[in-house]
């Protein structure tokens, strides 16, 4: 076995890169989708739940009250484009491209090229069935702020050292 395979404390996923959260408070690569939540520019109470499917790039965008997004008719809306940009900031373009199975032709992928490659395949508009589970994952994510700290030792964290590397 290699040293990497024999290591107990190798970091398997790099920590998220810091980014501003005001526009896109939540983005994740999970459940076979790039998915997240985008704040509405006009209504502070409203958020859009947006997602792009891995491989087929089928996309969906609707409000948390399940009203369809006006911009996501036939092609990516601005919410989905913002979601892709912020995913690239948080996880790095390479990881996002690999996850979505996007092959950029020349050079390093960027948020722009990833969005363009996907959009050029004329992806279909998916249904908004995913909106509810994505929104509940966002609420679960927010709920982490409400959990109490503890001063009892957590020996399991010895397996999770910090790293200077980022995504």
């Amino acid at each position, binding site marked *: 076995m290699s040293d990497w395979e024999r290591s107990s404390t190798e970091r398997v996923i790099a920590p998220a890169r810091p980014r501003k959260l005001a526009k896109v408070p939540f983005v994740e690569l999970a459940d076979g989708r790039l998915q997240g939540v985008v704040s509405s520019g006009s209504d502070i109470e409203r958020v859009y739940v947006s997602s792009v499917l891995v491989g087929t790039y089928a996309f969906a965008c609707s409000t948390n009250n399940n009203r369809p997004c006006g911009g996501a008719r036939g092609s990516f809306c601005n919410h989905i484009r913002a979601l892709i940009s912020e995913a690239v900031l948080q996880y790095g373009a390479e990881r996002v491209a690999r996850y979505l199975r996007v092959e950029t032709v020349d050079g390093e992928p960027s948020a722009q090229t990833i969005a363009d490659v996907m959009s050029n395949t004329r992806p279909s508009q998916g249904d908004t069935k995913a909106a509810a589970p994505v929104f509940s994952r966002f609420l*679960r994510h927010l709920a982490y702020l409400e959990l109490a*700290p503890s001063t*009892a*030792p957590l020996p399991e964290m010895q397996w999770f050292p*910090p*790293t200077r590397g980022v995504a």
Partner: protein
Amino acid sequence: MRADLLSEPIAGLDEALAAVDGFDQALVAGLLRPQPAQAAGLTELAHAVAGTPLAARVAEAAEKTAAGAASEDHFIALAAARTALLGSVHDALVSRLDEAFGRTRSEETAPQAAERQAANLLVAARSWLSDLARSGWQGIDHDVISGSAQVVSAMLPDPALRRLATLLDGFAAELAASCPGTSLERVPVRRWGDLWSRAMLLTLPGAAEEPATGTATGRLLPLGVDLQEHATAVQAQVHAVFEPVGGAVSRVVRASVSVPKPDTVVGAGLWQLLRPHMSLLAALGEGRSMDLVGMPVTAEGDLVWSDEQARPGEPADAFATARVALPTATDAVTAPLDRHPARIAVPVFLEGYVAQTDDDALSFAVAGHPLIVDTDRIPSAGPLTPEAVAASGACIGLLRWDAGTYRVQPLAVETTVRKKAVAIHAGGWAGGTTDKAGVKAEKAATDAVAVLRERAGRLLRK
């Protein structure tokens, strides 16, 4: 210090690890219907514990598992065997360290946890872990992994289940990022074997309990802080020397504070989450000792911190503590279940070494013997850098062991900046900072948390 001892082979170590590897390889392919090669790995594990009280149970578990007829109890027995083997590896590595550094270790033993009723959530966690073992790392997909989310969410708010919940949360995130298993180019074989076995044993009621066995009254002299994080949790552990009032022998102790977090809170944001809950972080930043009165402490040397039991004391230089107080302080024993090489973190003081950089890897040559320096563990939100470590003349660090070698994790160094001798601490920003880069990082982190709190205020509980 006898650096030569750290590179000398330890009798039996390779054999014990080979038995662990055999089992870990079986987990790669999965335990649903093990092939002959995997079955051999299971048998090897059983043979390795044949002379122990676990022998009969593990032999039966290996046999049933090889035949594809294992129950959850059989998986527990296998996890116990693997844990016991690594426990013996831990003990051998620690006694070698004690010999090399001339350290004394307490003889106090950790109390046995009382048997408890099995909680439903523990049963649910065990069932998920069993499914995971059956699919194997190559068989994981989003369906298997998502089964953990509900269990973790339900466990996190309960302090008694926090250890298992935090472990499962970090483990599941790694597995989810590695799906589907069929397209994995490489597997962190030992690591996932560790996380799986440990989680499995923590589903046994009472296994996660490490009760306080006494109280500490006296002076606490901090050495440095070790930060640990995964996407949704962070822990800071302050390593310190405790001098009891009345002149009893001083002890090496730790004080920990941890909190779950959203994955977008990183860098300086980690200190911000932890800072309000342990005044020791501020004392550490200011280079102060603390006076403790009746602070609960476990047999493992873990202070169970409460700000009411501590007040700021006199200024105390960590390097003076490391030079004068550390050599005579007694190290604590490790709780039986925590005996694992990854758990080794012995505070040491090094000086008179020659720093060498080879292929980007830094090592300290101590009396001609190179000791790897784990610079990647220096938190990015702090003033200490790998360059400062490479230019240092003295170092407070944690002696660790991973992937077959001892290594030192720097907590603080003495170095020369513009012809002036200075001490730089990895946890220099733990209590806050006026450093320009630090202030900027703190501001960004404050903004991130403010946005999330605002969103949570509007969207949660609706």
